[in-house]
């Protein structure tokens, strides 16, 4: 599957990335090569294979008691890094 410069711009939008127009062709070529390589997987028949999202090595679920514990919280964070200031996201009509 070839990836075009338009595909790159589209996927970049999904990923909140901005890719300069002059970079799009080069990235499309690199990504095409990688995607063509990974298509090697299509030569395997996996119809009856369950996917593995994580290798589960644990015999049972690990759970902890529902008890409050002292942690580095927001006040600690504020002391170390300062308060978070976010830009305005709601505007007046």
């Amino acid at each position: 599957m070839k990836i075009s410069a338009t595909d790159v711009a589209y996927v970049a939008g999904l990923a909140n990335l901005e890719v300069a127009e002059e970079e799009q062709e080069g990235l499309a070529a690199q990504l095409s090569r990688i995607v063509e390589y990974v298509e090697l997987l299509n030569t395997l028949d996996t119809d009856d294979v369950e996917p593995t999202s994580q290798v589960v090595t644990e015999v049972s679920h690990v759970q902890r008691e529902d008890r409050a514990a002292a942690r580095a919280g927001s006040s600690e964070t504020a002391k170390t890094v300062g308060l978070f200031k976010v830009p305005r996201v709601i505007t007046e009509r």
Partner: protein
Amino acid sequence: MNLKNITSDALVEKYRNREIAVQEVIEDVFDEIDRVDPDLGAFIHTRKDAALEEARVLDQAIANGQTLSPLAGVPVAIKDNMNIRGIRTTCGSKILEEYVPSYTSTAVERLQHAGAIVVGKTNLDEFAMGSSTENSAFYPTRNPHDHDRVPGGSSGGSAAAVAAGLVSLSLGSDTGGSIRQPASFCGVVGVKPTYGRVSRYGLVAFASSLDQIGPFTRTVRESAQVLETICGFDPLDSTSTEVGVEDWTGTLDQPARGLRIGVPKEYFVDGMDTAVRDKIQDAIATLEGLGCKVKQVSLPHTGYAVATYYLIATAEASSNLARYDGVRYGLRVEGATHQEMYRQTRMRGFGSEVKRRILLGTYALSTGYYDAYYLKAQKVRTLILRDFQNAFEKVDLIVTPTCPTTAFKLGEKTDDPLSMYLSDIFTLTCNLAGLPGISMPCGKGSDGMPIGMQLLGNHFEEGQLLRVAHQFEQAGGFNS
């Protein structure tokens, strides 16, 4: 004092006997860093004042006759993707260049609790994405054996710091070989524990189903010591396991006789360095000499591992790195709207390899391609896992080269991402299957560069792994 010539337990013994003060050693460490590191580039930043203060307190405790913890006063380095409260965690990225975390990662906290003194944070490929440490946003790290060559990656700074004798030991993280490959290139021991062994609380996430923290050391015994310190359940990481930490240092000398060791035929491929092939054959003969039974095994899906890995790892990375948008962490580039702020911040903050991987991962997860790429890769991951399950019914451990070649030259692979990815071919199956693995020196190539042998064990079989590695080390005396 050059730390190359003394193990951490011998160092602690000297403190205990008051042959040397902790402050002297830590001062020497910083002198050596000042002398060597401007060329080597192993560290991103150091914490001299804090380390010397910790040394002073420890010297006082020794003077008062207090019992010393196993790693008391041992100088260590931490890959700069693990948090230490109050000092920067850059991840080798412009986007986190000024980020100061408000908490310490569990693995580092456990090392510090055992008395280790953190001297600094080490260089890495940006967000641990790379195999050469050339993707650091700041500068590349060089291989201590030859400054024209890469130290491997992504934990290249941690490997180089140990290999150059700047610290006794260090921590790295391994998502597809990022501890074992640089250990191989730099001629040191590197361990990637079983998935879930070490808490990842405070480790900046790259690919959450693959990431694991582990040590770099000069000897296997020191790696066993670090693992005993950092492994074990942590309520702050839901993927950490309750499987018990064993007395790994105490069982290193138990006989290896009779252990069955598998040699996977798929790992001896065309294009491998002849020197690498020869040294691994020699290593296999040494293992037989220790009484191990060596037999050939097959891992038939090995050839699909790189493709599987680069789909899964990039998909997970694209999701994990979505949080760097200028709001909570590090860099913010202002924009007219908040969307523009996100995009501008990410465009300026991320380097090209990180962007490439985010794009690939986003593509693999996007509507219309999810089944064809991401789901397909997860299914092949099951086949790779089954290969190992079948093999471990016949053998106890598997031996392979860590890498197909010795350390390559700086710049050699930077223009060709795919050829860089392929250099991880022998290390990344271990992460896909969640297994423990170790790389240790087994000789040198015709270029004089170190060659690494990799041993892989079944889940939670770190004990066997370390035992065989230790006895191999004793038999060969390969340490650089």
